[in-house]
């Protein structure tokens, strides 16, 4: 690996100061599972790697507060998916988080890292987008909140400024009954990168939010309010019709993992599966409420 320097700030001000100093010549490390691969491949040159694991202000936990679930920037995926608050309310995030890399990766990789790497195929991004997660960013200039849906600019690129750090991922608590699910297509059953991935969230009020990964430079989010996807009595043909309109915004390409045509076809296959499971869950949630 090309050489770089290492810094380990112990507080947020110290971290922000380092960021001010090094700007885009610095990279933050928490889990490091993406960063180190990039550094090993030599397609990223940095001057300093800043370890944020001792910055007390950056939490490694999941906290449920009034109306929100807050995921700390240092919370590792393996723990997030086992958190009772997440397990009970956000099955799509759990399903996605459980298949990110291997056990070893999930023990180390953070949800925040999965987001900030901005890989178009990142598995936790579609569910978090579908749940309408917000990202809180801080810098010496203050703090701002960005919807995850408008967080990505392109592959590997986000709206984070060189002097900013991700401080929190905030996921709104479900308003009413909600059903959600995640699915993906891969080349093998074991650990793999997604050929395409999809998360779907169905709300009691008839709104359906789908988010697709690996089908465009950034995640694609599509929303639909006819209510048909949330209605168990609607015909399969009609569901297909609606799903196809949702999928129309996806722009898959061909690469080593798959052809464009296969991606397009699998989008619909996976979207159907996601809708089916999400609807079962919505129905269950509606039943539970009565």
């Amino acid at each position, binding site marked *: 690996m090309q050489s770089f320097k290492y810094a380990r700030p112990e507080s947020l001000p110290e971290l922000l100061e380092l960021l001010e100093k090094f700007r885009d010549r610095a990279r933050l490390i928490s889990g490091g599972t993406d960063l180190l691969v990039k550094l090993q491949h030599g397609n990223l040159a940095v001057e300093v790697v800043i370890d944020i694991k001792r910055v007390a202000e950056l939490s490694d936990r999941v906290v449920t507060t009034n109306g929100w679930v807050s995921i700390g920037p240092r919370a590792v995926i393996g723990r997030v998916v086992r958190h009772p608050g997440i397990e009970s309310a956000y099955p799509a995030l759990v399903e996605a988080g459980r298949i990110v890399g291997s056990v070893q990766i999930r023990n180390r990789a953070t949800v925040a890292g999965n987001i900030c790497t901005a890989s178009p195929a990142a598995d936790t991004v579609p569910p978090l987008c579908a749940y309408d997660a917000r990202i809180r960013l801080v810098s010496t200039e203050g703090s701002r909140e960005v919807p995850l849906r408008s967080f990505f600019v392109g592959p590997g690129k986000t709206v984070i400024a060189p002097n900013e750090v991700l401080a929190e991922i905030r996921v709104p608590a479900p308003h009413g009954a909600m059903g959600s699910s995640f699915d993906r297509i891969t080349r093998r059953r074991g650990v793999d990168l997604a050929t395409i991935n999809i998360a779907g969230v169905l709300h009691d009020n008839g709104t359906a939010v789908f988010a697709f990964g690996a089908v465009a430079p950034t995640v694609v989010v599509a929303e639909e309010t006819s209510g048909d996807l949330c209605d168990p009595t609607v015909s399969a043909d009609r569901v297909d019709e609606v799903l196809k309109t949702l999928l129309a915004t996806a722009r898959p390409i061909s690469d080593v993992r798959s052809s464009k045509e296969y991606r397009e076809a699998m989008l619909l*296959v996976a979207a159907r599966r996601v809708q089916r499971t999400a609807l079962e869950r919505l129905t269950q949630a509606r039943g539970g409420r009565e």
Partner: protein
Amino acid sequence: MSYSVIGSSVNRVGGRDRVTGRQVYSADVSVAGTLHAKLVRVPCARARIVSIDKTGALGVPGVRMVFSGEDLEPPYFRYGPVFADKPIIAIGETKYDGDPVAVVVAETVDAAEAGARAVEVQYEELPAVVTIDQALDPGMPLVQDPDTRGDSPFRDTNTLKEWRFGWGDVETASADLVIENEYSFPMISQFAMEPFAFTAAPDHDVMTIYTSIQIPTKMQKTIADLLGKPLSKVRVVAPDPGGAFGGKQHPKFEPVLAYIAEKLQRPVRLELTLAESFYAVRRTSARVRVRSGFTRDGKVAFHDVNADWLIGAYADITPRIVEKGSYAGGGPYVIPAVRILSRALLSHTTPPSAFRGFGVPQMNLAIESQLDIAAKKLNIDPMEMRLRNIPRKGQNFLPDDPACDGHWDQVIARAAENIGWNTPKESNRGRGMALGIKMSATTAASYSVVRLHADGSATLLCGTSDMGQGARTVYAQIVSEELGVPIERIHVVMGDTSTVPFDLQTTASRSTVYMGRAVYAASQDVKRQLQEASSQGSDSNEEILKSLFGKVSGEIIGVGTARAEKRDGHPLGGHTAFYELVCTAVEIEVDRETGGVTIHKLVTAGDVGKALNPQHVHMQDDGAAVMGIGHALMEHLIYDERGRLRNAGALDYRIPTTKDTPGKMVSVFVENEDGPGPYGAKGCAESGLLAIGTAIANAVADATGVRIRELPLTPETIWSALQEAGDRS
């Protein structure tokens, strides 16, 4: 026969070191004062090297040398197991993506890496030959300079060599059904978990090479030729390889390291990453067109085969792969007429070498698919079809070769019974079966020494490489069986040409048979000496040893040899020692929406003669089966149109994980103690891989009604085929 340790599943000799992390692999070897090397490459398939500016690299603190083709003078030393065609480093032109243009040598790995980044290579990308069609296109550039190809009749083409085999007359053979198809088999990576690591260490006049290699003696010869040294002054230390599968038979970067080490008179070490290994070796891909005739009652009437094999820019062992794969290409059947024309085609891609099964799986896909297609058309059960065509024991099926040496009907029966061939299956499932046959070693030269020490323990010296197949274990069992020495009191020494006697090579599932025979003979030699000594009145080993060495210590040395000489005039240079025969059967299910395959059950049935260690045989079968599932469902090297390898490494080249294995995997074998090895053993290391791709393709056809003639059967490939079939109907 009943034996004490032969035929029992004793634990792996060397296993303890492997579960504790103590086993030393080639990357774990550390020689004091070692310099570190890093390769410099250009990112394209073929380039003219315009200039190499070494100044920046030489300015990096710690860099000791930047070596490139310009540092060599003609005539250039070239090496290779069949043709000496490969220079130690690219001279003037790179010939495949990853072909190194320079080697940076430095005091530390970091400095070598920094140096490699600082080397400035000016190059001009040239058009490259990447596919079979391009290799056959007379308009494409020549991969090898005609002047380096002597009097080859093909010197002005990209055909390296052509082979014609066969018998009977396919033109006049009468058949009720004729089918013709084309099949293609991809480029596959050996993907040994252990990446390559080499150290060349000069010491006085001896050059020592530490490398993970299957044929230390051939390496020794190559380095001796390169440096102009006698064999005695080149020592090859070959730690047990961390997997090899054929990919570690022949020299890779050892020659260039030895050259540099000799120049600098310092040890030099090079460790490749797993991704870099993808540029060092692969499996030969092939396109096979076959026209087959069948009689109404399901007998094969003829096969007329045209096979094109895509090799690299240098031949390596591929001529032998094509030759052996083609020779018995018709399969284990009695066929009146066979005609096979095979061509090895040069290209600008990763140089292929051996891989478990050699050239068999490529041909197998074509021939065994044809059999299934015919069976369906003739309305004959595919298993029955095979039973009607296989030879019985003692029956000839290859005109110039030994007769069928086993009860192959029993092998099919075991496979059938274990997969439940004749039982009803669920409607969405498919079953498939395929036979595979491989010619084994045709020549041999294995020598072994057994030293029975004064305390009754024994040291065995032999030149096999134990790359996981368990040679150490089986040899220890043989010594133990013959001399009554407990396994734990036997030490097996391998992998150092300065210590162990000559062995031709660890290839072709030969070691149990040939080195096994040498070890057996060496043990018998010791036994004979013990018996001679015991005529003086003592009988137990201890008593004899005590009487011999009670006063002045010593040991008994037994020597054993197993050789098979070349047969002049035989197309393969000799008769196969045995046939490695397998029947693979699978039951699968296809997800019609995604094209994904689920393998519910897989059975590997082989004819092993005698399983000296049944657990080891099962491990070979299971390992080969899962490797074969990789071949069948997911593995292939992907090149772009410019010949750049797009999926080198573990990220985008997928091999099966713990979750990609069959629901149930069974390995069974037939044992009639009728092999040429000790106790009637035959080799069995490759059989599990020979036919599995075909068995799965046959099962996919059974499940979906759609025949796919290429591997791998990725979800996308199957999905596309189903779409196409759907569109057609």
